[in-house]
């Protein structure tokens, strides 16, 4: 799976998958890997460089950039080196390696030779990190964007498995007709980060980016 440069036509959502979301970047500078040569102080990358990395498309939903999805955490420069922090949406997200390769290729095209792409796990990615622009693009692709995590995701603390088999109703609005009369069909869809739903008004199936 390789990233397609440029913006794909609408309708590519059928193969959409791991949105690697980027959390709004924290401004703190993370410690370099122990033992890595310190080529100077790390500073925030120039807006041009950051924008170029931010626009690297998600391999599965190429209309969205990795910053839209909250996958991109930070872009720094340290002397001649450019350091990029990314975070996976799910532990098993298979898109991470393609994203890593695309970031390196993007920076190489801009003449950067010394590139370090790091995967950071903490804090864990959350759908709350998807930008407003990212949510609009998801909707345009026919994928219902996630609601607030606090409302939908089983909480870590006192969560117990639900003991009802009734389909979840009215969880999300249909991205096609806007009706809220929808059913959850399956909690797992074409990728781990999405669930499958159907609209009882217009009859169309659709995917929902699960709050996570």
């Amino acid at each position: 799976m390789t990233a397609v440069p440029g913006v794909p036509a609408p309708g590519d959502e059928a193969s959409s998958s791991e949105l690697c979301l980027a959390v709004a970047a924290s401004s703190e500078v993370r410690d370099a890997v122990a033992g890595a040569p310190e080529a100077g102080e790390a500073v925030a990358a120039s807006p041009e460089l950051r924008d170029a990395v931010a626009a690297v498309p998600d391999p599965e939903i190429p209309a969205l950039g990795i910053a839209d999805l909250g996958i991109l955490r930070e872009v720094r420069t340290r002397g001649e080196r450019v350091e990029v922090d990314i975070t996976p949406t799910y532990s098993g997200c298979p898109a991470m390696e393609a994203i890593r390769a695309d970031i390196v290729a993007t920076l190489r095209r801009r003449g950067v030779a010394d590139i370090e792409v790091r995967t950071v796990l903490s804090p864990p990615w959350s759908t709350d990190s998807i930008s407003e622009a990212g949510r609009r693009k998801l909707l345009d692709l026919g994928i219902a964007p996630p609601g607030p995590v606090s409302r939908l995701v089983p909480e870590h603390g006192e969560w117990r498995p639900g003991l009802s088999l009734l389909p979840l109703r009215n969880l999300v609005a249909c991205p096609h007709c806007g009706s809220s009369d929808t059913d959850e069909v399956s909690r797992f869809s074409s990728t781990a980060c999405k669930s499958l739903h159907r609209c009882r008004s217009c009859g169309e199936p659709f995917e929902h980016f699960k709050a996570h």
Partner: protein
Amino acid sequence: MTAAVVPALAVYALRLGDDCLVLSQRLSEWTARAPELEEDVALTNIALDLLGQARLLLSYAGEVEGRGRDEDALAFRRDEREFLNCQLVEQLSGDFGQTIARQLLFSTYQHQLWRVLCGSIDPTLSAIAARSVKEAAYHCDHAAKWTLRLGDGTEESHRRMQAGLDAMWPFAAELFERDPLVGDLAGRGVAVDPPRLRPAWDAAVLAVVSEATLAVPDTAWAPTGGRSGLHTEALGHMLAEMQHLHRSHPGARW
């Protein structure tokens, strides 16, 4: 490899990682064979989550061990007796009832484990746990819903779900065992003390089993040994298939 020469933290990370790796391999056996398309996708997604967690944990174990073994070396170049997973996850997938029973018992345990491990003083384990607890919640929910559907379903689905539970139940005891290694790590705030997870596990599993009109198996048999490399016959056969390609073509790349 023995616990005597490997740092305790590396052993602990391997135990956690091997649980994920072995169950991931078992679940992937259902790919393209599940009873319906949505279920095929669900089990494969769960297997993928577990594989991702396994990669993080095995990589960390290799790093802590400091002998130059990466995730692939640990997954594909160790023999059966060097695997430190619990025996529950290596059990044959059997029919769908047996697979769901294994999922119910294990994912409920693992969800509690990640939840508590979020508080580890080890920043890597804590980060992996915080990443994984959200995934495990979906795994628990999936298993609970199928247990209800099968247990409180037809006569045949009830019989098979009960048979699956009967087959898997004895292996759950090992999940809550404390040995000196984990006891010491838990005392230092690095690991989770396994017996501590039992009350919440009991409450969650019993609620589902009871709602599903199933019976808790009446057995005192509690096989053990996985954490020190002693396994049931099932693991060796599984590893033979899992490791075959890598061992036949060392260093092969896509």
